[in-house]
């Protein structure tokens, strides 16, 4: 076809040049035609000449299921909720029509088992959902499936009005006023995601009432106290919704303002050394530590176990762990205060405390 077209154009050009006119425009016209004859077409002649992809071209997401640890970071990172992970069934699914190829999941994947392929998915007439097999994993704690999701969100009497639930609510459906001792949920706004239930330090929240666990009310008496094992990491102060705790690492100072303390227990959950308790004595299970903590132990990582997810980097209160690149985990030993926060947060249990 092209050859025929080109021959036709050549004949036309020759005919035109035969009738030479005095108009200047003619020379430009002829020049353009002759110039274009030698050039390749601007289009690719696609099916014959294959399209070459750039290295960065974002086409579609693919997964290497064998390496997946079902951590769920990709599903959380996805802005369109296109990814679903069924840990119990061992299934990783992606809704192809929902995926916008932003590659947020690929960037977030700690195991680097997700990749962005150059080629887009094949066009289709139905909304495709692709499913991949990943290793099965028992759901953590298994408590999440337990509460029946029917009924409105309710709060038991054990509530201390800390307000953590209101902060966690993505729909802003919860209102908490500590002074007025007021807890309110706007059932119309509530999306029943359960984020507040996970966050509540007292376990007072549930869907449909009744289910609310009585919670070990017994040891709730007495003020918050801190045992000698404290390493002054400050995680408790950060967790406190009422800003009642003050920690100064240099001065080795831990102070609680008992008037502000609402006894929610959020700090107790956060303390990596288990030093905190209400009414003293109770929780001090740790062997009595020496008065000053001269780096009794520091964090270390088992060879080859680190997956480079950087969870510990973010958790470390002292910024003693520099960002992990290519799974090479380092520790700035002089900065480590031995709090063990990194041990708890590691998704693959690669970190342990070693004595020095």
């Amino acid at each position, binding site marked *: 076809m092209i050859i025929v077209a080109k021959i036709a154009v050549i004949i036309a050009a020759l005919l035109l040049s035969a009738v030479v006119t005095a108009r200047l425009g003619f020379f430009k016209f002829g020049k353009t035609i002759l110039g274009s004859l030698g050039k390749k077409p601007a289009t690719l002649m696609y099916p014959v000449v294959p399209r070459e992809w750039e290295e*960065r071209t974002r086409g579609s997401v693919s997964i290497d299921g064998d390496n997946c640890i079902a951590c769920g970071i990709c599903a959380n990172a996805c*802005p369109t909720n296109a990814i679903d992970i069924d840990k119990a069934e061992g299934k990783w699914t992606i809704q192809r029509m929902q995926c*916008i190829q932003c590659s947020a999941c690929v960037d977030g994947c700690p195991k680097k088992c997700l990749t962005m392929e150059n080629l887009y998915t094949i066009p289709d007439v139905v909304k495709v959902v692709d499913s991949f097999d990943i290793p099965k994993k028992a759901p953590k704690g298994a408590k999440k499936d337990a509460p029946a999701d029917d009924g409105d969100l309710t709060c038991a009497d054990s509530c201390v009005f800390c307000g953590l639930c209101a902060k966690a609510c*993505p*729909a802003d459906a919860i209102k908490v006023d500590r002074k007025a001792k007021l807890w309110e949920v706007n059932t119309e706004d509530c999306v029943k995601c359960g984020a507040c239930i996970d966050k509540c330090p007292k376990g007072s929240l549930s869907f449909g009432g009744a289910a609310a666990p009585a919670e070990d009310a017994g040891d709730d008496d007495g003020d918050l106290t801190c045992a000698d094992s404290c390493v002054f990491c400050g995680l408790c102060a950060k967790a406190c919704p009422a800003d009642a705790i003050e920690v100064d690492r240099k001065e080795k100072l831990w102070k609680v303002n008992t008037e502000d303390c609402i006894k929610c227990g959020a700090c107790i959950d956060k303390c990596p050394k288990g030093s905190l308790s209400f009414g003293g004595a109770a929780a001090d299970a740790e062997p009595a530590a020496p008065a000053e903590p001269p780096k009794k132990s520091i964090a270390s990582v088992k060879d080859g176990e680190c997956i480079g997810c950087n969870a510990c980097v973010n958790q470390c209160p002292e910024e003693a762990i520099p960002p992990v690149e290519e799974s090479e985990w380092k520790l700035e030993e002089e900065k480590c205060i031995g709090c063990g926060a990194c041990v708890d947060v590691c998704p693959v249990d690669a970190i342990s405390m070693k004595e020095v």
Partner: protein
Amino acid sequence: MAKRTIVPFGPQHPVLPEPIHLDLVLEDETVVEAIPSIGYIHRGLEKLCEIKDFEQMVYVVERICGICSFGHGWGACASMEGALGVEIPERAEYLRTILHELGRIHSHLLWLGLMADGFGFESLFNHCWRIRETVLDLFEKNTGGRVVFSICKPGGMRKDISNENLQEMVTVLNGLKAEIKEVTDAFIYDKSVQNRMTGVGVLTKEEAMELCAVGPTVRGSGVRQDIRLTGDHGVYKELDFEPCVEEAGDCMARTVVRIREVFQSIELIEKAVAKIPDGPVDVKVPKKVEGEFAIRLEQPRGEAFYYAKGQGTKFLKRMRVRTPTNINIPALVKMLAGADLADVPILVLTIDPCISCTER
């Protein structure tokens, strides 16, 4: 007084892909009044910003518009960075400026093509878009996407662009200059194009200022107004930026402003690539947003406004975007009054309308 007729124009119209509806009140062939109405593609993106993690929101805000998507991503990131109190590295600021100017080239070439299509010059349209294709290839190579780039994130850039690639970008763009000149000369010197555009839809300097027009629309009326002059965003201060201004205020003037801006953007990219410092391209940002921040950007279509307000969680309390087309609609209505019915499509195109941006 002649009999008045009302002709509906849009939201579906052969020359205009954008769904704007105009009720044109005609006296014979002359438009007496134009009543605009929009609201055909509202998608509720601002509300969506409130129920999604702020870092994820960038990918959604970018998709407000397929043509000025880099600017939208930048605006969203910059407003969040302001609210977080984060300073981004200099190299990231340079890269954003370079990509934003590259986006301007691609947007203006697209518009020139649509304009040519609007006044019925089909081959000119084809050539404008052929050149634009090269610019899109540059985008694909450097960011991974042709029209939606997803390379901005709060705190900087997701990927670095190597200095070799930047150099290559400059070489390719300089090579395009001759081709762009050949095509744009047809706009400026072709007799039939001049007949369609010169003296059509005049917006005087006073009217443009009074109606708060922005972007090439206001610069075509002789007003030296460009957000890049303020130096709020990007590194334009270091690039000796001076906006392109034309005095006539008609369709031709607005076209010439855009043509000159294409060449100016190539120069700005060249200057920025010569000056770009080495270093990191991103910084870590806090996970929770508090405080609020507003920023203005000069998009290819004019001034755009971004506002982010945090509430101490990872969800934003409010995200507000105001786009240039929204502000240019009063100027458009002014231009339409007194125009011929046949000129209406060209006049609507001349403000470079992006209704998807306007409605979000």
